[in-house]
């Protein structure tokens, strides 16, 4: 079982999903992306219960997802691939070309828009993935390890993009890179072994580390380790901030 008794609500803003590997972050993202169905409980996205397939379809039209292993067709150009995703999202045909160009411009690939994806570097391919996620101007964006393969400069710019996107959409970023979370997210959820270990702002998480001279090279890393330790200690009292 990947997730155990998770009860969460997300509003607008950029939310970070943090946690060790195999914590259940990807499972949670997949459930939110309506790719996987929960075995128990309800999932409500944008006010619709996604158990019913018709509502699920409507919700998916307002959703953008970038999976951890981003698969693509190497023979397609960037424009063709993003247009194909737009078609899959049932965007109106007249609006598609402009939306494609806008999405590609937002990730900075305009000069490669007609290049075949197989000619692009790893970081550019990930940007294509981001472009296909935002092509339909979604209300909910789900990114699973989006900064994998980006160099530090690109990571900085990606965080700026996240902040812009989070202004009017709900962005959920799952990552194990703590600095990404610190810089871009308005809220952090720590997941460990299928359970919620901590929920709060990045600042509060960093404060948890406090003067503790434990492991971690930065304040937020120390806070991360402290929260994990606190969650794993069975007798310690846990405080979950709203």
């Amino acid at each position: 079982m990947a997730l155990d008794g998770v009860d969460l609500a997300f509003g607008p803003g950029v939310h970070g999903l943090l946690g060790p590997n195999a914590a259940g972050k990807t499972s949670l993202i997949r459930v939110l992306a309506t790719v996987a169905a929960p075995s128990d409980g309800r999932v409500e996205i944008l006010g619709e219960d996604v158990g019913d397939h018709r509502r699920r379809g409507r919700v998916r039209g307002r959703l953008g997802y970038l999976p951890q292993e981003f698969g693509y067709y190497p023979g397609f150009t960037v424009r063709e691939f993003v247009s194909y995703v737009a078609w899959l999202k049932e965007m109106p045909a007249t609006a598609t070309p402009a939306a494609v160009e806008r999405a590609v411009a937002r990730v900075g690939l305009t000069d490669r828009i007609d290049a075949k994806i197989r000619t692009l570097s790893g970081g550019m391919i990930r940007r294509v993935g981001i472009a296909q996620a935002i092509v339909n101007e979604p209300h909910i964006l789900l990114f699973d390890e989006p900064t994998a393969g980006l160099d530090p400069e690109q990571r900085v710019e990606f965080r700026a993009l996240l902040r812009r996107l989070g202004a009017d959409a709900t962005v959920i970023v799952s990552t194990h890179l703590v600095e990404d979370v610190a810089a871009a997210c308005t809220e952090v959820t720590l997941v460990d072994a299928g359970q919620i270990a901590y929920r709060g702002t990045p600042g509060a998480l960093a404060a948890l580390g406090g003067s503790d001279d434990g492991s971690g090279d930065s304040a937020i890393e120390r806070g991360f380790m402290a929260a994990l330790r606190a969650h794993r200690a069975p007798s310690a009292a846990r405080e979950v901030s709203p």
Partner: protein
Amino acid sequence: MTLTADSRKPPERRLHPLRAEIVRGFAPWTGAAVLLTLGMLLTGTSAQWQGGWAETRSQLHDSMLVIAPLTAAAGCLQGGRERRRRTDELWETAVRGRLARFLASAMPVALWAAAGFTAAAALALLATWPYAQGDRPHLGLLPGDAVLLAACAMAGHVVGRLVAWRPAAPALAMAGYVGLAVPAMASPGAGRHLDAAFPAPVGSYPVWWQPVVMAVWTGGLASAAVLAYAARRRYTALVPLAAAIAAGALLVRTGDGLWHDDPLASRQVCDTSTTPQICVNARYEGLLPQVREALSEVVGRLEGVQNLPVRFEDRPTAPRHGEARLPMLAPLGWSVVRGRLTDPKQYAWEAVAELEGRGDCQSTLDPRVRRADDAVEHYLAPGPHQEYFDRLAAEGSAAERAELTARQRARARLASMGEEERRIWLSAYFATAGSCGARAVPAL
């Protein structure tokens, strides 16, 4: 290279999102492969179908035995694409349902395969047209075959999605070969009417609704597989399945009544100006001038001779009494290639052999009869093969050389006769045509 908003304008393009699926990737290669394989096949066998519309139709249809399993394998390769490219997770979040996505990736291969086949068929028909000698183009089986190819591609795509095994595609092709060829090769049973790639014999034609029902049978099965895999309401697969079963039952029930012989093949076109008259099957009526030309010397030298058959006939049945069979023009590729007789002298000699009518008893003939036959052949239709056998005999044993001398003497005797004497001799000779006994053959 920045991630921030780019103010430059990208080049203008207004193309449909699905254009890439149709134009790029594996699908056009499938069409090219079908065209190439068929092209190779047709070019290699061109002597056997060029010039005959019925032969062209049969060759195109028979090649389905090979093209259909390969198309299924191509569909299988395309079906594994989502697994190989690892896009299946991402496509789960698409709004368009599984069926729409399935069709978006499966239809291009099916359409390109059918297009490749149609292009090859058009080229074959164009290649036959200049050399056609009669009959008319037979296009009835082509749409059914195109539907078969599309159905194989779709069914192969379903297999490719389901089976993650590497050699799945060649194994599917092999299964296709076996499945389509077994009814054709093993003992005939009811199954051969269901076999969409069953070879169509040159002289027979299906009833008009057979291709339609066959298309419903193959297309129904493939649609049922597609719906069972990709549709959300899986029970909708029952509808095409029921249609397919009904079509199959109809095919099996009608059985041999599905095919009937070409009425044109039992008719013939005759030239009544000669004795014997020369008749050519109506399917190759354009060959009549060439045949008459080839037999002109024979007929000319038989002027005034009695006891000849009334005509050379060219029907599928055995010759009636008083007729001789015209040397075979069909199947193409032997005597007739691309609308021309390959060897008129050989053809004339075969006609004389038919007049003699002793084809059944060649091995038991008396030497005297054999010499008489040889002399008649030499007089009426001399040819290069006689010189070849003469040369062989000249280098052979003493008995063979003696026989050669006797033959040459008989030939000289016949050639040196006067006109009237030879006519009488030939009339007496042809009175014995068809009988193997030596008694009545006149002496030389």
